[in-house]
Protein backbone atom coordinates (compact mmCIF):
# COMPACT_ATOMS: atom_id res chain seq x y z
CA UNK A 1 0.00 0.00 0.00
CA UNK A 2 1.55 3.24 -1.09
CA UNK A 3 1.47 5.82 1.66
CA UNK A 4 0.73 9.25 0.34
CA UNK A 5 0.85 11.53 3.32
CA UNK A 6 3.46 14.01 2.22
CA UNK A 7 3.98 15.35 -1.28
CA UNK A 8 6.96 17.72 -1.22
CA UNK A 9 6.98 20.46 -3.84
CA UNK A 10 10.42 20.99 -5.38
CA UNK A 11 10.92 23.89 -7.82
CA UNK A 12 12.14 22.36 -11.06
CA UNK A 13 14.65 25.12 -11.63
CA UNK A 14 16.47 24.79 -8.31
CA UNK A 15 19.70 22.82 -8.43
CA UNK A 16 20.19 22.71 -4.67
CA UNK A 17 16.69 21.40 -3.95
CA UNK A 18 16.72 18.87 -6.78
CA UNK A 19 19.99 17.60 -5.39
CA UNK A 20 18.84 17.21 -1.79
CA UNK A 21 15.09 16.82 -1.44
CA UNK A 22 15.27 13.03 -1.36
CA UNK A 23 17.11 13.11 1.98
CA UNK A 24 13.97 14.38 3.71
CA UNK A 25 12.10 11.19 2.85
CA UNK A 26 8.72 12.50 1.84
CA UNK A 27 6.25 9.89 0.59
CA UNK A 28 6.32 11.61 -2.80
CA UNK A 29 8.46 14.29 -4.41
CA UNK A 30 6.76 16.65 -6.82
CA UNK A 31 9.04 18.40 -9.31
CA UNK A 32 7.33 21.60 -10.31
CA UNK A 33 7.53 22.95 -13.85
CA UNK A 34 4.52 25.22 -13.38
CA UNK A 35 4.14 28.03 -10.86
CA UNK A 36 7.65 27.76 -9.39
CA UNK A 37 9.32 28.38 -12.74
CA UNK A 38 9.33 31.69 -14.65
CA UNK A 39 8.39 31.55 -18.34
CA UNK A 40 11.95 32.45 -19.26
CA UNK A 41 13.27 29.35 -17.53
CA UNK A 42 10.67 26.74 -18.55
CA UNK A 43 13.02 25.11 -21.04
CA UNK A 44 15.91 24.93 -18.58
CA UNK A 45 13.77 23.63 -15.69
CA UNK A 46 12.30 20.92 -17.91
CA UNK A 47 15.79 19.56 -18.59
CA UNK A 48 16.70 19.80 -14.89
CA UNK A 49 13.69 17.69 -13.95
CA UNK A 50 14.30 15.25 -16.81
CA UNK A 51 17.84 14.66 -15.57
CA UNK A 52 16.98 14.62 -11.87
CA UNK A 53 14.28 11.97 -12.44
CA UNK A 54 16.99 9.59 -13.59
CA UNK A 55 19.25 10.15 -10.60
CA UNK A 56 19.61 6.94 -8.56
CA UNK A 57 18.56 8.73 -5.38
CA UNK A 58 15.06 9.15 -6.77
CA UNK A 59 14.65 5.54 -7.74
CA UNK A 60 13.13 4.63 -4.38
CA UNK A 61 10.89 7.64 -3.91
CA UNK A 62 7.64 8.19 -5.76
CA UNK A 63 8.28 11.01 -8.24
CA UNK A 64 5.59 13.35 -9.50
CA UNK A 65 6.00 16.05 -12.16
CA UNK A 66 3.63 19.00 -12.21
CA UNK A 67 3.51 19.96 -15.86
CA UNK A 68 2.17 23.26 -17.11
CA UNK A 69 -1.55 23.51 -17.87
CA UNK A 70 -3.04 22.45 -21.20
CA UNK A 71 -3.73 26.10 -21.99
CA UNK A 72 0.03 26.87 -22.12
CA UNK A 73 2.61 26.26 -24.89
CA UNK A 74 4.74 24.21 -22.47
CA UNK A 75 2.77 21.14 -21.45
CA UNK A 76 3.56 18.82 -24.31
CA UNK A 77 7.34 19.08 -23.96
CA UNK A 78 6.89 18.91 -20.18
CA UNK A 79 5.08 15.62 -20.69
CA UNK A 80 7.89 14.25 -22.85
CA UNK A 81 10.39 15.11 -20.13
CA UNK A 82 8.24 13.60 -17.39
CA UNK A 83 7.37 10.33 -19.13
CA UNK A 84 10.77 9.77 -20.72
CA UNK A 85 12.50 10.74 -17.48
CA UNK A 86 10.59 8.03 -15.66
CA UNK A 87 8.25 10.03 -13.43
CA UNK A 88 5.82 7.82 -11.53
CA UNK A 89 2.99 10.33 -11.77
CA UNK A 90 2.15 13.32 -13.92
CA UNK A 91 0.19 16.00 -12.10
CA UNK A 92 -2.07 18.18 -14.24
CA UNK A 93 -2.72 21.61 -12.69
CA UNK A 94 -6.00 23.48 -12.97
CA UNK A 95 -7.92 20.40 -14.10
CA UNK A 96 -11.49 21.28 -14.98
CA UNK A 97 -12.87 18.41 -17.07
CA UNK A 98 -12.54 14.68 -17.54
CA UNK A 99 -11.66 15.31 -21.20
CA UNK A 100 -8.44 17.05 -20.16
CA UNK A 101 -7.36 13.91 -18.33
CA UNK A 102 -8.33 11.75 -21.29
CA UNK A 103 -6.40 13.95 -23.71
CA UNK A 104 -3.44 13.82 -21.37
CA UNK A 105 -3.65 10.05 -21.26
CA UNK A 106 -3.58 9.80 -25.05
CA UNK A 107 -0.37 11.82 -25.18
CA UNK A 108 1.20 9.91 -22.31
CA UNK A 109 0.51 6.59 -24.06
CA UNK A 110 2.02 7.91 -27.28
CA UNK A 111 5.20 8.95 -25.50
CA UNK A 112 5.43 5.69 -23.57
CA UNK A 113 5.32 3.79 -26.87
CA UNK A 114 7.90 6.10 -28.44
CA UNK A 115 10.39 5.70 -25.60
CA UNK A 116 9.83 2.06 -24.83
CA UNK A 117 8.15 2.51 -21.49
CA UNK A 118 5.36 0.05 -20.65
CA UNK A 119 2.06 1.59 -21.72
CA UNK A 120 0.08 2.36 -18.58
CA UNK A 121 3.17 2.69 -16.42
CA UNK A 122 2.85 6.46 -15.96
CA UNK A 123 0.09 7.37 -13.56
CA UNK A 124 -1.90 10.59 -13.40
CA UNK A 125 -3.19 12.95 -10.80
CA UNK A 126 -5.37 16.00 -11.12
CA UNK A 127 -5.18 19.26 -9.19
CA UNK A 128 -8.48 21.01 -8.61
CA UNK A 129 -8.01 24.77 -8.56
CA UNK A 130 -11.34 26.25 -9.58
CA UNK A 131 -15.10 26.02 -9.06
CA UNK A 132 -15.46 24.12 -12.35
CA UNK A 133 -12.86 21.64 -11.19
CA UNK A 134 -14.70 21.11 -7.94
CA UNK A 135 -18.06 20.45 -9.57
CA UNK A 136 -16.44 18.08 -12.09
CA UNK A 137 -14.29 16.34 -9.49
CA UNK A 138 -16.06 12.98 -9.66
CA UNK A 139 -15.80 12.75 -13.44
CA UNK A 140 -12.19 13.85 -13.27
CA UNK A 141 -11.32 11.27 -10.61
CA UNK A 142 -12.91 8.53 -12.72
CA UNK A 143 -11.61 9.79 -16.07
CA UNK A 144 -8.85 7.23 -16.45
CA UNK A 145 -7.57 3.98 -14.93
CA UNK A 146 -4.24 5.80 -14.59
CA UNK A 147 -5.70 8.25 -12.06
CA UNK A 148 -4.20 7.58 -8.63
CA UNK A 149 -4.86 10.82 -6.77
CA UNK A 150 -6.68 14.12 -6.80
CA UNK A 151 -5.39 17.23 -5.05
CA UNK A 152 -7.11 20.34 -3.78
CA UNK A 153 -5.18 23.53 -4.58
CA UNK A 154 -6.33 26.41 -2.44
CA UNK A 155 -4.83 29.60 -3.78
CA UNK A 156 -6.28 29.78 -7.28
CA UNK A 157 -9.53 28.21 -6.15
CA UNK A 158 -10.15 30.95 -3.58
CA UNK A 159 -9.46 33.61 -6.20
CA UNK A 160 -12.03 31.92 -8.45
CA UNK A 161 -14.50 31.95 -5.56
CA UNK A 162 -13.93 35.62 -4.76
CA UNK A 163 -12.87 34.93 -1.21
CA UNK A 164 -9.74 34.30 0.82
CA UNK A 165 -8.22 32.08 3.50
CA UNK A 166 -9.35 32.46 7.07
CA UNK A 167 -8.36 30.86 10.36
CA UNK A 168 -10.47 28.40 12.30
CA UNK A 169 -12.29 25.71 10.37
CA UNK A 170 -11.79 27.54 7.05
CA UNK A 171 -15.37 27.57 5.80
CA UNK A 172 -14.22 28.93 2.46
CA UNK A 173 -12.61 25.57 1.66
CA UNK A 174 -15.24 23.32 3.18
CA UNK A 175 -17.29 22.43 0.13
CA UNK A 176 -14.29 22.05 -2.17
CA UNK A 177 -12.50 19.78 0.30
CA UNK A 178 -15.58 17.66 0.78
CA UNK A 179 -16.24 17.42 -2.94
CA UNK A 180 -12.69 16.44 -3.79
CA UNK A 181 -12.63 13.89 -0.99
CA UNK A 182 -15.87 12.28 -2.08
CA UNK A 183 -14.68 12.15 -5.66
CA UNK A 184 -11.50 10.45 -4.50
CA UNK A 185 -13.34 7.89 -2.40
CA UNK A 186 -15.91 7.16 -5.08
CA UNK A 187 -13.12 6.55 -7.56
CA UNK A 188 -10.96 4.69 -5.02
CA UNK A 189 -8.03 7.04 -5.39
CA UNK A 190 -6.08 9.19 -2.93
CA UNK A 191 -6.89 12.76 -1.93
CA UNK A 192 -4.46 15.57 -1.09
CA UNK A 193 -5.23 18.67 0.91
CA UNK A 194 -4.08 22.21 0.12
CA UNK A 195 -0.62 23.70 0.53
CA UNK A 196 -0.05 25.62 3.76
CA UNK A 197 2.02 28.58 2.62
CA UNK A 198 3.24 30.10 5.88
CA UNK A 199 6.35 28.05 6.61
CA UNK A 200 7.02 29.97 9.82
CA UNK A 201 3.72 29.04 11.41
CA UNK A 202 3.94 25.44 12.63
CA UNK A 203 0.88 25.79 14.83
CA UNK A 204 -1.29 26.97 11.98
CA UNK A 205 0.07 24.18 9.82
CA UNK A 206 -0.77 21.50 12.37
CA UNK A 207 -4.25 22.94 12.89
CA UNK A 208 -4.89 22.57 9.18
CA UNK A 209 -3.41 19.09 9.17
CA UNK A 210 -5.92 18.08 11.84
CA UNK A 211 -8.76 19.33 9.67
CA UNK A 212 -7.46 17.41 6.68
CA UNK A 213 -6.86 14.25 8.68
CA UNK A 214 -10.26 14.40 10.32
CA UNK A 215 -11.96 14.88 6.97
CA UNK A 216 -10.13 11.82 5.68
CA UNK A 217 -7.48 13.22 3.33
CA UNK A 218 -4.64 10.79 2.62
CA UNK A 219 -2.15 13.57 2.82
CA UNK A 220 -1.13 17.12 2.00
CA UNK A 221 0.95 19.02 -0.54
CA UNK A 222 3.98 20.54 1.23
CA UNK A 223 6.29 23.38 0.31
CA UNK A 224 8.99 23.01 2.95
CA UNK A 225 10.88 19.91 4.12
CA UNK A 226 10.27 20.70 7.78
CA UNK A 227 6.56 20.19 7.21
CA UNK A 228 7.20 16.52 6.36
CA UNK A 229 7.98 15.28 9.87
CA UNK A 230 5.30 17.45 11.43
CA UNK A 231 2.77 15.93 9.04
CA UNK A 232 3.92 12.34 9.50
CA UNK A 233 3.76 12.62 13.27
CA UNK A 234 0.31 14.18 13.12
CA UNK A 235 -0.90 11.35 10.92
CA UNK A 236 0.67 8.68 13.09
CA UNK A 237 -1.89 6.60 14.94
CA UNK A 238 -2.00 6.79 18.73
CA UNK A 239 -0.71 3.89 20.81
CA UNK A 240 -4.26 2.83 21.48
CA UNK A 241 -5.01 2.89 17.76
CA UNK A 242 -1.87 0.87 17.09
CA UNK A 243 -2.71 -1.84 19.62
CA UNK A 244 -6.24 -2.02 18.31
CA UNK A 245 -4.92 -2.34 14.75
CA UNK A 246 -2.58 -5.14 15.82
CA UNK A 247 -5.47 -6.98 17.42
CA UNK A 248 -7.57 -6.58 14.28
CA UNK A 249 -4.79 -8.01 12.13
CA UNK A 250 -4.16 -10.83 14.56
CA UNK A 251 -7.86 -11.71 14.39
CA UNK A 252 -7.72 -11.64 10.60
CA UNK A 253 -4.65 -13.91 10.61
CA UNK A 254 -6.35 -16.37 12.94
CA UNK A 255 -9.49 -16.49 10.83
CA UNK A 256 -7.35 -17.10 7.79
CA UNK A 257 -5.44 -19.92 9.51
CA UNK A 258 -8.63 -21.56 10.61
CA UNK A 259 -10.07 -21.25 7.14
CA UNK A 260 -12.94 -19.13 8.39
CA UNK A 261 -14.69 -16.84 5.93
CA UNK A 262 -15.52 -14.23 8.51
CA UNK A 263 -13.24 -12.32 10.86
CA UNK A 264 -14.44 -11.39 14.29
CA UNK A 265 -12.99 -9.45 17.17
CA UNK A 266 -14.52 -8.92 20.59
CA UNK A 267 -17.69 -10.58 19.36
CA UNK A 268 -18.13 -8.19 16.44
CA UNK A 269 -17.62 -8.82 12.72
CA UNK A 270 -14.63 -7.15 11.14
CA UNK A 271 -15.19 -6.09 7.54
CA UNK A 272 -12.41 -5.91 4.92
CA UNK A 273 -12.33 -2.08 4.97
CA UNK A 274 -11.57 -2.20 8.70
CA UNK A 275 -8.73 -4.67 8.09
CA UNK A 276 -7.42 -2.40 5.38
CA UNK A 277 -7.57 0.54 7.78
CA UNK A 278 -5.65 -1.45 10.39
CA UNK A 279 -2.94 -2.25 7.85
CA UNK A 280 -2.66 1.46 6.95
CA UNK A 281 -2.48 2.43 10.62
CA UNK A 282 0.43 0.09 11.26
CA UNK A 283 2.16 1.25 8.13
CA UNK A 284 1.82 4.88 9.22
CA UNK A 285 2.99 4.07 12.71
CA UNK A 286 6.12 2.50 11.31
CA UNK A 287 6.75 5.34 8.90
CA UNK A 288 6.19 8.20 11.35
Amino acid at each position, binding site marked *: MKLRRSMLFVPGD*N*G*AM*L*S*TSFVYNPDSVMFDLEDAVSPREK*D*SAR*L*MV*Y*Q*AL*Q*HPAYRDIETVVRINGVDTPFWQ*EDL*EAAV*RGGADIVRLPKTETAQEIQELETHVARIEKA*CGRAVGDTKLMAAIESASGVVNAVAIARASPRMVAIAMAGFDYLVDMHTRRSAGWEPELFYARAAVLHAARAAHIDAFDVVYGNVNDDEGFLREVQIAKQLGFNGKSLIHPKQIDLLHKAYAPTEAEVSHAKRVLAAADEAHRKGLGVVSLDGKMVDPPVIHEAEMALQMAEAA
Partner: protein
Amino acid sequence: MKVIKEAIAGTLESSDLLVKVAPSDRGTRDVVIRSEVIKQFGKQIRRVVTDTLDKLSVSGGSIVVEDKGALDCVIRARVQAAVLRACEANQLEWERLS
Protein backbone atom coordinates in the same frame (compact mmCIF):
# COMPACT_ATOMS: atom_id res chain seq x y z
CA MET B 1 23.91 21.02 -33.73
CA LYS B 2 25.24 24.40 -34.74
CA VAL B 3 25.86 27.15 -32.20
CA ILE B 4 24.51 30.27 -33.86
CA LYS B 5 24.27 32.76 -31.02
CA GLU B 6 25.34 33.41 -27.45
CA ALA B 7 23.25 31.97 -24.65
CA ILE B 8 23.40 31.23 -20.95
CA ALA B 9 21.64 28.82 -18.61
CA GLY B 10 21.73 28.10 -14.90
CA THR B 11 22.41 30.21 -11.84
CA LEU B 12 25.23 31.17 -9.48
CA GLU B 13 23.65 29.40 -6.50
CA SER B 14 25.23 26.61 -4.55
CA SER B 15 24.76 23.19 -6.19
CA ASP B 16 24.08 24.80 -9.55
CA LEU B 17 26.24 26.13 -12.37
CA LEU B 18 26.18 28.93 -14.91
CA VAL B 19 26.91 27.82 -18.46
CA LYS B 20 27.75 30.24 -21.27
CA VAL B 21 27.79 29.08 -24.86
CA ALA B 22 28.97 31.25 -27.76
CA PRO B 23 29.84 30.67 -31.40
CA SER B 24 33.55 30.21 -31.97
CA ASP B 25 35.24 32.26 -34.65
CA ARG B 26 37.96 29.66 -34.83
CA GLY B 27 35.68 26.71 -35.65
CA THR B 28 37.05 24.77 -32.70
CA ARG B 29 35.31 23.62 -29.54
CA ASP B 30 36.70 25.23 -26.39
CA VAL B 31 35.58 24.22 -22.94
CA VAL B 32 36.67 26.29 -19.94
CA ILE B 33 35.66 25.15 -16.48
CA ARG B 34 35.93 27.04 -13.23
CA SER B 35 34.81 25.49 -9.97
CA GLU B 36 35.29 25.85 -6.25
CA VAL B 37 35.93 22.10 -6.21
CA ILE B 38 38.10 21.96 -9.31
CA LYS B 39 40.78 19.91 -7.56
CA GLN B 40 38.49 17.11 -6.42
CA PHE B 41 35.98 17.13 -9.24
CA GLY B 42 37.52 18.99 -12.16
CA LYS B 43 38.05 15.86 -14.24
CA GLN B 44 34.57 14.57 -13.50
CA ILE B 45 32.94 17.87 -14.39
CA ARG B 46 34.85 18.05 -17.65
CA ARG B 47 33.87 14.47 -18.50
CA VAL B 48 30.17 15.18 -17.97
CA VAL B 49 30.32 18.46 -19.92
CA THR B 50 32.23 16.90 -22.82
CA ASP B 51 29.95 13.87 -22.94
CA THR B 52 26.86 16.09 -23.01
CA LEU B 53 28.30 18.22 -25.81
CA ASP B 54 29.29 15.14 -27.81
CA LYS B 55 25.79 13.66 -27.57
CA LEU B 56 24.41 16.93 -28.93
CA SER B 57 27.01 16.88 -31.73
CA VAL B 58 28.38 20.29 -30.79
CA SER B 59 31.60 20.46 -32.76
CA GLY B 60 32.35 24.16 -32.57
CA GLY B 61 31.80 26.79 -29.93
CA SER B 62 33.09 28.42 -26.79
CA ILE B 63 31.69 26.90 -23.62
CA VAL B 64 32.46 28.44 -20.24
CA VAL B 65 31.23 26.74 -17.07
CA GLU B 66 31.13 28.44 -13.67
CA ASP B 67 30.39 25.51 -11.34
CA LYS B 68 29.11 25.87 -7.78
CA GLY B 69 29.30 22.22 -6.75
CA ALA B 70 26.53 20.78 -8.93
CA LEU B 71 25.68 17.10 -9.28
CA ASP B 72 26.24 15.43 -12.66
CA CYS B 73 22.54 15.50 -13.52
CA VAL B 74 22.39 19.25 -12.92
CA ILE B 75 25.54 19.81 -15.01
CA ARG B 76 24.00 17.81 -17.85
CA ALA B 77 20.75 19.75 -17.69
CA ARG B 78 22.35 23.21 -17.67
CA VAL B 79 24.78 22.41 -20.48
CA GLN B 80 21.91 21.02 -22.54
CA ALA B 81 19.75 24.07 -21.85
CA ALA B 82 22.51 26.52 -22.79
CA VAL B 83 23.37 24.62 -25.97
CA LEU B 84 19.75 24.33 -27.08
CA ARG B 85 19.27 28.06 -26.50
CA ALA B 86 22.46 28.85 -28.40
CA CYS B 87 21.36 26.67 -31.30
CA GLU B 88 17.81 28.03 -31.20
CA ALA B 89 16.58 24.46 -31.23
CA ASN B 90 12.80 24.29 -31.30
CA GLN B 91 12.36 20.54 -31.48
CA LEU B 92 14.02 18.50 -28.76
CA GLU B 93 15.61 15.27 -29.87
CA TRP B 94 15.21 13.33 -26.68
CA GLU B 95 17.57 10.53 -27.69
CA ARG B 96 20.43 13.03 -27.59
CA LEU B 97 19.57 14.21 -24.09
CA SER B 98 19.76 11.05 -22.04
